[in-house]
C-alpha cells in the first residue's frame, strides 16, 4: 500500500494506492476455468488512531485500487493509518505521516 498524506488548504488529502487483483469472479483463465472473486471488501482510515473514513467495496472497484479522500483539519506530522480486508479474510495495514505540499 502506498499512502500519501498532504496538508493542503486546511485538509489532509490522502491518496492510497493498494496492490490487489480485485477479481470479479466473472473472468475465466486460459483453460476456461472461472477465476474466483477476490476483492477488497472494506477499507478503514484513521488519523492518530481516530477513525475518519470507512468504505465498503464491491467487485467493480478497479484492480490496484486508488482511493482519495480528504480529512478536515489536521497537521503536518499527524499519522494516517489505512487498513483493508478482502473477501478471503486477508488484511493489510499501512501508515504515513502528513507532510506539507512539495514546493513548486
Amino acid at each position, binding site marked *: 500500500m502506498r499512502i500519501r498524506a498532504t496538508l493542503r488548504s486546511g485538509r489532509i488529502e490522502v491518496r492510497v494506492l493498494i496492490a490487489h487483483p480485485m477479481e470479479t469472479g466473472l473472468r475465466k483463465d486460459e483453460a476456461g476455468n*472461472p477465476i474466483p472473486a477476490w476483492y477488497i471488501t*472494506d477499507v478503514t482510515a484513521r488519523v492518530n488512531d481516530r477513525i475518519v*473514513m*470507512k468504505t465498503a467495496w464491491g*467487485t*467493480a*472497484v478497479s484492480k490496484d485500487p*486508488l482511493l482519495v479522500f480528504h480529512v478536515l483539519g489536521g497537521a503536518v506530522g499527524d499519522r494516517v493509518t489505512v487498513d483493508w480486508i478482502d473477501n478471503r479474510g486477508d488484511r493489510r495495514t499501512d501508515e504515513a505521516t502528513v507532510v506539507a505540499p512539495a514546493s513548486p
Partner: protein
Amino acid sequence: MPHVSRRRRRAILNRGLGIALGVAARAGLGAIGLGVRDADAQEAPDRDAFAARSVADALARLRILDVADSPDVLLDAPDIAENGAVVPVSVRSRIAHTDAIFVLLDRNPFPLAARVDILDGLAPDVALRVKMAETAAVIAIVRADGRYWRAQRDVKITIGGCGG
C-alpha cells in the same frame, strides 16, 4: 457468531471457494466473507447490496426508496474512457450533513461499486477508480439528513473492463 479459530475459518472459506464457482459462489463468498471477519471489525450492513445485479435491486437492498437529482452532488467521470478497467470517478457533495456516498455503475454485472461513510471530520469528497463493462451511466448518490440525492454521467467505454 460462535468463536471459530482463524485456521478453521480459513478452512471453511477455502472449502467454500472450491465447492462452486459462478453466480452461486459469488453470493456464497459474500456470505462467507461476512462470517470470516473478526468480531471487532465493522460489518458492512449493506453487504448484500453489493451482490445486486441491477441498480434498481441495489437501491432496493440499500432501502433507498426516494432519490432526487441535485446539482449539489458533483460527480466527475470522463466522457470517454479508453480503458473500461480503470475509470476515474470523483464525487463531491455540497449538501450539508452528507454522511454517506454511494457509487453505482449502470449495466455492470454488479452495479454497486462502493459505499463511503462520511464520518465526523471527513470531507464529502472522494475519488476512486472503477471497472465498467460497457458504455453506461455512473451514478452517485449521497445521503444527508436521511434523504438521498443523486447525480449521474454517461461514460462511453471503448474497451470494456470486466473481462469474461
